[in-house]
């Protein structure tokens, strides 16, 4: 993308990079780096749900932690509502923390077992020094109701709740300060299907009710299809495809996206015999020494000489459909 994003962009990310240094010896000399995220450019539009998919280790969580500024980027630029937040320090970020919140994957470890639900969900008020009208307790009880828990749960502890209920507690905490952007990292992947559906519907209702903007990170392509307006596909620290939901699932243009979609088991035994599956060879290469040129070339059936020499830039193939491939479909 050449222009800095359409006016409705809530968050704009340009050339975002995160390299984790690998050090050796007592002097902690740097001998290399994990290129977890390597040059992402995209925007998140007000009111939309941007889904982010990709296989384990491709940099999804790192991206989420960068845009919520829980991690310091190595390079690149992050703008929230037009304001550069790339290098804001702790105090500079404090007002921003209200607007940008994160929901984590594991409803078991992300809640402090020694704190009551009231303390956990009320924490953002204390941290931000905010006194809601009517008091923290009343506000927290309202939040519990909003996410489908009972206000009487206020004095209970996390271990007294099921996985789905704990995820609701995490969501209530994230919503306490009425954020504009919620980044959810695998919000339902630890949950059973029947509970997963409850939480997916809850996120959906809350978006409508509160006008939230979501970035939802998940490896489950069925969940992503259901929740997203637009979808970004990542491979080894790079964005390989970014488009609206319908185009991605009906006309994927990047070979990796095609392979990924064809690999998902379809819950319909009658379709079993008709399916054409693209089986990829081998494993994802190490992000410490990724392949030259196109990072997918070691597993791509279309790979040609140019693919090892030149990195394919993320370009607009059709309106609103961006792909990083020398030979898109």
């Amino acid at each position, binding site marked *: 993308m050449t222009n800095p994003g359409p006016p409705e962009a809530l968050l704009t990310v340009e050339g975002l990079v995160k390299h984790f240094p690998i050090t050796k010896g007592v002097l902690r000399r740097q001998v290399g780096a994990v290129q977890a995220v390597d040059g992402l450019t995209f925007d998140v539009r007000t009111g939309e749900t941007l889904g982010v998919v990709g296989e384990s280790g491709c940099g999804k969580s790192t991206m989420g932690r960068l845009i919520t500024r829980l991690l310091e980027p190595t390079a690149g630029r992050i703008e929230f509502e037009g304001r550069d937040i790339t290098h804001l320090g702790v105090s500079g970020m404090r007002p921003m923390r209200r607007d940008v919140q994160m929901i984590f994957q594991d409803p078991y470890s992300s809640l402090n077992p020694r704190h009551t639900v009231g303390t956990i969900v009320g924490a953002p008020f204390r941290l931000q020094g905010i006194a809601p009208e009517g008091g923290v307790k009343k506000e927290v009880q309202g939040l519990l109701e909003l996410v489908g828990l009972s206000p009487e749960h206020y004095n209970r502890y996390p271990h007294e709740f099921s996985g789905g209920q704990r995820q609701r507690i995490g969501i209530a905490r994230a919503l306490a300060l009425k954020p504009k952007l919620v980044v959810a990292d695998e919000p339902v992947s630890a949950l059973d299907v029947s509970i997963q559906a409850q939480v997916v519907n809850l996120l959906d209702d809350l978006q409508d009710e509160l006008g939230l903007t979501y970035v939802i990170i998940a490896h489950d392509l069925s969940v992503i299809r259901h929740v997203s307006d637009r979808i970004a596909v990542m491979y080894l620290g790079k964005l390989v495809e970014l488009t609206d939901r319908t185009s991605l699932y009906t006309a994927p243009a990047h070979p990796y996206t095609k392979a990924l979609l064809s690999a998902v088991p379809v*819950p*319909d*035994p009658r379709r079993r015999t008709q399916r054409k599956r693209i089986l990829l060879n081998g494993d994802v290469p190490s992000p410490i020494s990724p392949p030259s040129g196109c990072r997918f070339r070691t597993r791509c059936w279309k790979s040609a000489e140019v693919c090892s020499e030149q990195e394919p830039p993320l370009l607009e193939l059709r309106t609103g459909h961006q792909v990083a491939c020398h030979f898109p479909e």
Partner: protein
Amino acid sequence: MSEQTGEVFLSVRDLKIHFDTDDGLVKSVDGISFDVRRGSTLGIVGESGSGKSVTSLGVMGLHRTARARISGEVHLDGEELIGADPDRVRRLRGSKMAMIFQDPLSAMHPYFTVGAQIVEAYRVHHAVDRRTARKRAVELLDRVGIPQPDRRVDDYPHQFSGGMRQRAMIAMALVNNPELLIADEPTTALDVTVQAQILDLIRDLQKEFGSAVIIITHDLGVVAELADDILVMYAGRCVERGPAEALFTRPRHPYTWGLLGSMPRIDREQTDRLIPVKGSPPSLINVPEGCAFNPRCPYADVPEGGLTRTERPELTPVPGDDGHHSACHLAHEERTRIWTEEIAPKL
């Protein structure tokens, strides 16, 4: 159960596995029955804690704690395993029946090379020298798609990627040509592209060896890909079983409807909300009386006389649908009506 006929190789009848714990008696498996034929695949689905793994470990004779109370019948190729001599069961395990787990690291020893472990598994059941056994190990690693198997055979498990470890464990399970293979969530920890490779591998191997396979998973997509027959578990019991096609196209149990309604679809554009099941699965110490699903079931009040809350529904044949059984007090005509009029149109 399916049209892919071979003789029944594994037959399980009224299997119960209860555990004595400090909190009370956990009824992990509470009377389940099924058959698996040679050359066919049974898929067992259910949410976490529904008793899937306890069932499979029970078949394999792997509940060795004194706190486990096991009853019922497990016939492997006609031979009764419940109450059989533990040495006999140990000999069958790894030869006639084998298991692959979700986490390969739990099945493999970190301090021995992958090859050494496959060699060991082979030599337990075959009187051959190390060189012959090693040749067999390399051959199997090759068969499951490990590149450069003659070199990788000397690697340690941690030197393999997750997908490769899963393949190595499959190689180890197959080394003695088992006639029954149980795969407990074999791909849950893997990425979809790797999952696709492993599912293909299991399917090919089954074709090649004509073995009976049980695949246990919480993923309805995985069973739809692989299984000839499906068994749905809820709170330690089977609520519905039958041919895969019947379970997906004309399910006759409210819990199965709930699973299908909860599932976001990869294969179609769907703008409607999901239809979740309310509440969460019960603790197996305090299983609800009557039908275990009644606190979560939208139809619990439909059958006359509150039957649902006092009497446990037995698994009965679905009229006119060969091999299809379900356990629900609702009248069959009523269930057919609900499925065709209320549920199917929303999926």
